[in-house]
């Protein structure tokens, strides 16, 4: 087993007729993902890569039995399409697009929580379970099957870690992109819990970055709930200060959000802190991961 994606996952691609949606559909199919159809309003009846295209998500669900959806919908339409998808009863939604208004993301998060729908993103490369399938844009060549779980706030850093591990023949069970936005639809501890409960994952790598308090909350969760070995890397130690959230943000978070605060929280929780991505090899060796 892997987390999130499994043999019962039947995926639709929203925005399938777009340039990106159609190419990514091809790549997801090539990787063995069970894609059952697509949705683009007004393009119902067409086919893409041999898959049926529907106007509405509920039609797609009814006709294909889909239970998961990956979004390549233009940012300004994502909120509406997301609510539609939740209402249609889809269990897992991956929001790849970036530049979703954060006030929309708050509404999406709230709605998904209310209805018990699991959603990742926005601005996520998606999920990839090597050898099983992928929902999103992760470039398949960098991944290898194995027993290490990776969860990353940054899309490209998840590729970097998978690439480094794969080069040393250390495979991954599932690689999850949380999404890089300030408000994401699923927080870090929820993913960690899935990895902890996954029989096919032996250890977990958390790829974080400065800003927000996902890592601090995760550290707290790990200290109380996790037994598997965990390594973490926080990007941004030497980075120019990014977007400043003003006083209110700084006040609310206190020391949360800083590199030092995150590192300290992880160390307290017994998490191995990696100073650089390439150090993951030594950690994997120490824990005999493969």
């Amino acid at each position, binding site marked *: 087993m892997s987390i999130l994606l499994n043999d019962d996952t039947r995926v639709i691609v929203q925005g399938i007729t777009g340039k990106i949606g159609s190419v990514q559909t091809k790549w997801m199919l090539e990787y063995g993902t069970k894609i059952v159809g697509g949705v683009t309003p007004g393009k119902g009846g067409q086919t893409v890569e041999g898959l049926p295209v529907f106007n509405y998500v509920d039609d797609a669900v009814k006709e294909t039995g889909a239970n998961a959806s990956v979004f390549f919908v233009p*940012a300004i339409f994502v909120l509406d399409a997301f609510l539609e998808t939740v209402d249609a009863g889809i269990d897992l939604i991956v929001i790849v697009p970036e530049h979703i208004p954060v006030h929309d993301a708050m509404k999406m998060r*709230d709605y998904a929580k209310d209805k018990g729908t699991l959603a990742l993103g926005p601005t996520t490369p998606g999920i990839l379970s090597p050898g099983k399938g992928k929902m999103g844009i992760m470039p398949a060549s960098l991944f290898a099957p194995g027993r290490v779980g990776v969860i990353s706030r940054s*899309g490209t850093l998840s*590729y970097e870690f998978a690439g*480094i591990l794969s080069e040393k023949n250390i495979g991954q069970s599932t690689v999850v992109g949380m999404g890089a936005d300030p408000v994401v639809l699923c927080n870090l501890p929820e993913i960690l819990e899935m990895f902890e409960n996954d029989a096919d994952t032996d250890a977990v790598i958390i790829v974080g970055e400065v800003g927000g*308090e996902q890592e601090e909350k995760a550290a707290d969760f790990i200290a109380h709930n996790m037994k598997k070995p965990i390594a973490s890397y926080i990007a941004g130690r*030497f980075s120019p200060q990014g977007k400043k959230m003003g006083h209110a943000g700084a006040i609310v978070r206190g020391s949360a959000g800083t590199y030092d605060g995150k590192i300290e929280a992880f160390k307290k929780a017994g998490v191995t802190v990696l100073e*650089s991505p390439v150090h993951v090899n030594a950690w994997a060796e120490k824990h005999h991961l493969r």
Partner: protein
Amino acid sequence: MRLHEYEGAAIFEKFGIPVPRRGVVRTVEGALRIADEIGFPVVLKSQVLVGGRGLAGGIKTAESSDELEKSADDLLNMEIKGLPVKELMISERVKIAKELYMGITIDGYSGKPVAVVSTEGGVLIEETAKHSPEKIASVKIDPKLGFYPYQAQKLLRQLGLAPKPLTACSDILVRLYKVFEKYEAIIVEINPLVILENGGLMAVDAVLEIDDSALFRLKKSLSLPTDNRLGNSLENKGKEIGVTYVDLDGDIGLISSGAGLGMASMDIIGNKLNPANFLETGGGITADLLYKCMELILMKDLKAIFINIYGGINPIHEGAKGIVKYIKDHHLTLPIVAKALGNHQEETWEILRSGGVHVVTQAATETAVDKLIDLLK
């Protein structure tokens, strides 16, 4: 997009929040005219989009025309954190009994707006947060329900204010939330919110930062210019072509796909080399975009270029074509190291090599940084 104080104040005023009488000027003569209208004493405030302008000397007061003339002239010839002061807000100087703080931002982890208030307004509010957390109160807001006076009062009661200012403050905080909601703000802030000697309240500063991703639907209600609002012209140019560009002091050009990978690159470069910038392409690399990125980073004098990209959304050889086209168009000879992985990577490497780029095919960014250091020896 962060608004100027005078732009924020105009919006606050429209939403019924009391703000000082004021005017915005670009000349000393303008300043004198406004001051005549509102009467001395006045405050002169530099309108630059950086924090800490007060501590940097960007705010002055004037009791008389002479004093105003001199101060205005000083400020209009000043730079604050590298930004020239082009506009001044001249506003009435109010009689302050007490300075409070109120702000609304987004709590990313819960995904909800959060209102923050404090009895200790002023420039040192972040210090207060660290050392006297009891003087600060905050509450998360359910955006579905909105924010009502009773909730604002419940929050403000924690500060131990007297009933009259408490009610007036809660009224302002509810209005501030309406601004936050209507303008899809990342942050709205009044610091200080002043209790006047006469008991009234006044918002003496106005911070309003709007979510850039929401501008498409706000442009109509904003009716403000949305371009070129960053202090640095290269950063504005980055925004124009759709990438995040941060200007730095060094001499190595840095292009990365993704903020995380960019930050990791900076971390790994550490003190070994000095980046001239931080350019993060976001998703969707195309030939055209990378051509423009090259153009942008080469507006500075560079010793070498470091490219660290992954192809996810688009096949990565498209981006490579843009880089090589730029190299050939401009007969570029300075050393370029590129780590480029993802879909169509072999093709990508071939294209990059055809432009004389030193290609690294391993995943670890260290390898690429080592290669660059080697080349610069």
